[in-house]
């Protein structure tokens, strides 16, 4: 597997917009070509080489791995629209990491800022720390958020995560989010997304859910009044076939959207 190593060598006051740091862009480029790629700092255009040391050798996008070192917590849009390969980030990461990604894999050994994996269309995003608000969400005004792929967050995610998620039975697309705990309005306007939370969730989980599955292994600070108790279950089967064992109370909803609904919310009994 070809490998490119980037190391941040300069601090910067304003966020650095680095949507060019992606396996698709790097594929087949020499290190000098990579260094000449354009980043945005405020209203200035700067070259990647000014801010990053570039080592290693590039190759085909499918076979390429980008490893990023140094504090990139204020670098935005890494892995935007990426389709293949792998990115490994050994630090906290700024906003929009892996947004609109179609394939491949991104691993963050740290925390991610807001809009991590926003509107994900495929691939896998793994965050070992916490993630910010709007993880796996639709951007402002979009009615289709995360359409496919997997986001795994070990820690807590912020508010309004997985907003407007949209599955497609016909195309066999099942957007899935795993996380340790979550903020308020988790899975709001959900249209078929699957969310599994290991711990507790703040208010209004599954608000306006049309259909989809939310499994919460901890507690919810305030369950919405429009969810109705269906019964108790000992096992939850997810649309992808995965089975989660444990005692859960099954609720149907959100009934403020439809009187009869396939939307399900499971909260640990």
């Amino acid at each position, binding site marked *: 597997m070809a490998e490119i190593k980037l190391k941040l060598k300069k601090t910067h006051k304003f966020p650095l917009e680095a949507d060019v740091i992606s396996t698709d862009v790097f594929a087949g480029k020499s290190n000098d070509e990579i260094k000449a790629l354009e980043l945005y700092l405020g209203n200035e255009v700067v070259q990647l080489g000014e801010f990053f040391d570039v080592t290693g050798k590039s190759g085909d996008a499918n076979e390429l791995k980008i490893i990023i070192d140094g504090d990139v917590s204020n670098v935005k849009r890494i892995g935007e629209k990426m389709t293949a390969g792998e990115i490994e980030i050994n630090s906290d990461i700024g906003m929009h990491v892996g947004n609109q990604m179609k394939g491949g894999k991104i691993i963050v050994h740290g925390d991610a800022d807001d809009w991590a994996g926003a509107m994900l269309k495929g691939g896998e995003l793994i965050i070992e720390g916490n993630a910010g608000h709007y993880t796996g969400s639709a951007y402002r005004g979009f009615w289709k958020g995360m359409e496919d792929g997997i986001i795994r967050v070990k820690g807590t995610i912020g508010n309004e995560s997985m907003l407007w998620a949209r599955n497609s039975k016909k195309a066999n697309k099942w957007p899935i989010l795993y996380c340790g705990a979550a903020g308020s309005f988790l899975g709001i306007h959900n249209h078929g997304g699957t969310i599994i939370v290991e711990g507790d969730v703040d208010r209004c989980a599954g608000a306006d859910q049309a259909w989809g599955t939310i499994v919460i292994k901890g507690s919810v600070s305030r369950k919405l009044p429009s969810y*109705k108790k269906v019964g108790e279950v000992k096992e939850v089967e997810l649309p992808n076939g995965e089975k989660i064992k444990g005692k859960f109370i099954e609720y149907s909803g959100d009934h403020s959207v439809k009187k009869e609904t396939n939307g399900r919310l499971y909260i640990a009994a």
Partner: protein
Amino acid sequence: MVERKIKTVYDVICPFCGTLCDDLEVDVDNTTEKVVEVRNACQIGTAKYFSSNPSEHRYEKPMIRKDGELQETTWDEAIDKAADILVKSKRPLLYGFSSTECEAQGKGVELAETLGGILDNTASVCHGPTLLAEQDVGVPSSTLGEYKNRADTVVFWGCNPVHAHPRHLGRYSEYVRGYFKKDGRNDRFVIVVDPRNTHTAQIADLFVQVNPNEDYELMNAIRATLRGVEIEEEEVSGVPVEKIKQLVDILKKARYGVIFFGMGLTQTLAHHRNIDTAICLIRELNDHTKFLITPMRGHYNVTGANQVFSWNTGYAYSIDFSRGYPRYNPGEFSSVDLLMRDEIDSSLIVASDPASNFPADSVKTLFKYPLIAIEPHETPTSVFADIVLPPQMAGIECVGTAYRMDSVPLRLRKVKDAPGDCLSDLEILERLLEKVKEKIGE
């Protein structure tokens, strides 16, 4: 013939709140160019007219900070220094615009684009969440005249027009006699939903007291009840389920209803999701009857700022031009968030006073960097400014266009001349833009 000392200007549009009352009469002393009397306006509108008279609080000449003190200077020097600050910045913030007229706002957009800066208006800290919700789920709305003539059920949710929009009730929503509502107040059923028993609530037919920050759950329960679902709890957000059923019954029986909402929804927890669910509630109510929704906009031309920014850039607020084209993302490019993350290096504040309204930490960041204020009065923002450019007050000392809260454009009138060397906001921004273009060689 005796020459009259006082001239009276009729049918004046009040440039204070989003109601834009259009029936004011203003008396101006011909010799001193001072407002001496305002008729028909509310107390707040009247006070704004009197505040335009020369006083120790009114700037009459451009000011520049020298040796730590604001000192009078010439327009040429002030504009040159201001352009210098903006051109040298990598991430200038242009904020405000809601209390000036549309032509000046348009010039502000051009300036932000030329500078590659960030453009934001006060919707960012008031009804911005309303705009976010409208983008998510749409909005069924109407002009205020329709409500006046037809509405028989009026809901005020999280707003207190008796104090914030004093003449709204008398002109459009509660006491006014409409074409089909000839008996005024007696023809309307008024509901107030609020955590506090406000003065608007005290004159309502039904007051629903909701727990603070729990409007979302209440609205959610109303929507479910409307769908025919039994709520399993006894009370939601402090409101008994029986009362929710009564409320749903009243809303369904309305022949033409409207919800007016204010910052009690947009700036409490859940923000835009409160509006999101309120709009969905309206959508569902339209299965049974006619129902509409309108935000109670604060600044008289904040709706105009949203309109002007939208038709120029495609977005209503929180716009970033740093990559040469407009991008929009409240939370990332909104003023308070930028300031909290210390992501600006200069600011131009137009017709606004963020120091009084923003969180303290963000104001500290604002004052860390060069600040240019286009501001007629001494405010907590302008006293810390490096350059103060004194404008004429739109709607009092110069003409212009403003949008009412229901997006109806009205032409503002001029009633008197401005004191001192004041220029219109439009002219100041034009001169600034010209200077900026000259400096960057465009």
